């Protein structure tokens, strides 16, 4: 059945398709609709549990704890809430709890401009919590893709045994498009991790050995554990090398755009080649390098001050041109003139 759906609704339906039965959240624009949907859904489906927590810290901890208890769980928030969730994200990686964190980005830092869209939480995705960990993050650009990627995120969570981050932005969350969810086929990976009440394990955020014994002064044990975690996460990330590449004949310039910015610059695909990373982190290093090799100029257009541009520079090992839209208004004309200006400077 064709229906008109917002990005937020598609994310929620995607989670249900993936088998999620627990949602915890705290009201924040622009993801409050997901919280509302969860509340309504829990009324009609008794298997689905929902918690409106006292803050995002509690929401994130509840999401991870429910996952340890054996159900597929998720939460949704925006920038400031995501900041509060960082503690739980770090913990989720150490206790190896599969779940999904949705972060619909708005202008920051702090409260910023509620609710103007931005894409400025990328660094927070990568390393907002203490210590080394290797998160996996996806970023759709349409309502239909939001649905698909939510299922993908749940699958990647089950495989990597970690909280997967699904990015969106205030535009995408409130974007309405016509979709037919019934015809979208998805593969769902079931839960394999043993739930609580089955053994005598310790799920701890402290460094530990395989059976969960706390090892606070054993660097060799810690290194071995981290190496395994890293390997597993990168192996799962490799399984999802998601991107979209639209080559344009005779173009010497490659635009790198993602999320809502890719929709805004879409009229330019007649003039420039466009590369849209969907897996935002780990960075699509090899893929980006291959594609970038045949272009003279690489321009990253993004809703922040060059966060992804710096990752691109690191990944392809050469200079990239930046069009930092920051947050708030994204104007096509402004972006176009900025691209022209950057190219003029280069000539």
């Amino acid at each position, binding site marked *: 059945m064709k229906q008109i759906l917002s990005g937020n609704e598609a994310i929620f339906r995607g989670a249900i398709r993936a088998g999620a*039965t*627990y949602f*915890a959240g705290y009201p924040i624009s622009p993801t409050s609709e997901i919280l509302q949907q969860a509340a309504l859904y829990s009324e009609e489906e*008794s298997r689905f*549990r929902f*918690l409106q*927590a*006292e*803050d995002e*810290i*509690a929401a994130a*901890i*509840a*999401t*991870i*704890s*429910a996952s*340890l*208890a*054996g*159900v597929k*769980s998720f939460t949704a928030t925006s920038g400031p809430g995501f900041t509060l969730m960082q*503690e*739980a994200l*770090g*913990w989720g990686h150490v*206790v190896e709890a599969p779940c999904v964190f949705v972060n619909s980005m708005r202008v920051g830092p702090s409260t910023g401009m509620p609710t103007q869209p931005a894409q400025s939480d990328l660094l927070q995705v990568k390393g907002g919590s203490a210590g080394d960990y290797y998160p996996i993050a996806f970023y759709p650009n349409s309502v239909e893709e939001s649905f698909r990627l939510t299922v993908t995120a749940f699958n990647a969570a089950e495989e990597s045994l970690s909280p997967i981050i699904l990015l969106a932005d205030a535009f995408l969350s409130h974007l309405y498009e016509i979709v037919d969810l019934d015809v979208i086929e998805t593969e769902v990976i079931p839960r394999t991790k043993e*739930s*609580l*009440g*089955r*053994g*005598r*394990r*310790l*799920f*701890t*955020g*402290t460094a530990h050995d395989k059976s*969960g*014994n*706390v090892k606070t002064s054993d660097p060799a044990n810690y290194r071995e554990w981290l190496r395994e975690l890293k390997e597993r996460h990168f192996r799962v990330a490799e399984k999802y090398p998601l991107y979209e590449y639209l080559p344009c004949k005779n173009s010497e310039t490659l635009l790198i755009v993602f999320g809502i910015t890719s929709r805004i610059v879409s009229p330019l695909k007649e003039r420039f080649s466009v590369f849209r990373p969907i897996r935002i982190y780990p960075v699509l290093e090899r893929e980006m390098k291959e594609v970038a090799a045949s272009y003279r100029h690489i321009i990253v257009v993004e809703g922040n001050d060059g966060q992804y541009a710096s990752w691109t520079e690191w990944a392809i090992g050469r200079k990239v041109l930046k069009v930092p839209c920051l947050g708030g208004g994204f104007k096509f004309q402004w972006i176009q003139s900025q691209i022209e200006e950057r190219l003029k400077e280069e000539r």
Partner: protein
Amino acid sequence: MIDRSYKELLKMRRFPHTWCPGCGIGAVLKNVAMGLKELGLDYQNTAIVSGIGCSGRMGGYMNFDAVHTPHGRALTAAGAIKTARPDLKVVVLSGDGDLGAIGGNHLLHTSRRNPDITVFCNDNEIYGLTGGQAGPTTPKGTKTITSPRGEMYPPLRLGKILTAQTPYFFARTTVYHLNHFKACIREALLYQGFSFVDIISDCIELNGRRQGFKTAHQMFKWFDERFHVVEGVRDHLEDDELGIAKKEAEVEVKAGAKPEMEEKPEILEEDLKHYTIEELSHVDGSEGRPIFIGYKGKIYDLSSSPLFQGEKRMRCHIAGKNLTKDMEAAPHGEDLVLKFPVVGRLKE
């Protein structure tokens, strides 16, 4: 003779445990294990949740699946685990700093939601693991390394906070009053709802010595001077009382509303229509018919119940049936049914 089977619930191969000599947490660990064993709780029906700090390490010594949360988040985690897995008994082992300071917000809101979890708070009135800083429950005037001239502020009164809103179960005990301590553990584990046991415990190395105590036992004597046991179940506990405060949820009475019983017209039993089980099964709310159920030989009209939604069902009960047996298994009492009008008698 003493029953030592509680040791099965502890990871004895990891002993001696990590805490200082004379520390009260060892006593909490041991007595909670005894309480769990007594009630037949084991790793298949129970999950342990702990926080951070010395007391947070208790989970690692329990022969259960244990979740060691970030600092202060034990209650949130426990609530979520109980929601996701109602079949598990969830026990929280943590301390006063974890539950009262960094987890204070979660304490307020978890107790408000009243999940069926049991919390054992090792209240040693100090931050022990980090070296003896003043904590949320440190008595005013106590000298610690962060209050060298004596703690300036009055302590957080967990007992007052947790008994402000019904329903509640709050017990205060100490590691010295062993029999009382064990009784509190048992009562808390048996209570259906959010039960909190504030266990006054000793931190001899990092709190006691600075205050002039030489051994744990001297601190125990000091507990005995400061607190006294009160018998029976109370409504509230004073700050110097050890005991159990318990109160059921208050039923809201609308102002001006008459008690329902008076409004019910007297119905003579002979006048009531007789229904067979077969006839009853048709009056199940489908196709606009009213919703009748049978209970103890009588037929009740539940059409006005907000819990009967849609067709034939109300959560786990089915309309148009004799529900006498269901009542025994239900978590609610028969008063839920008796308040509805009687419309007939059930023909056997």
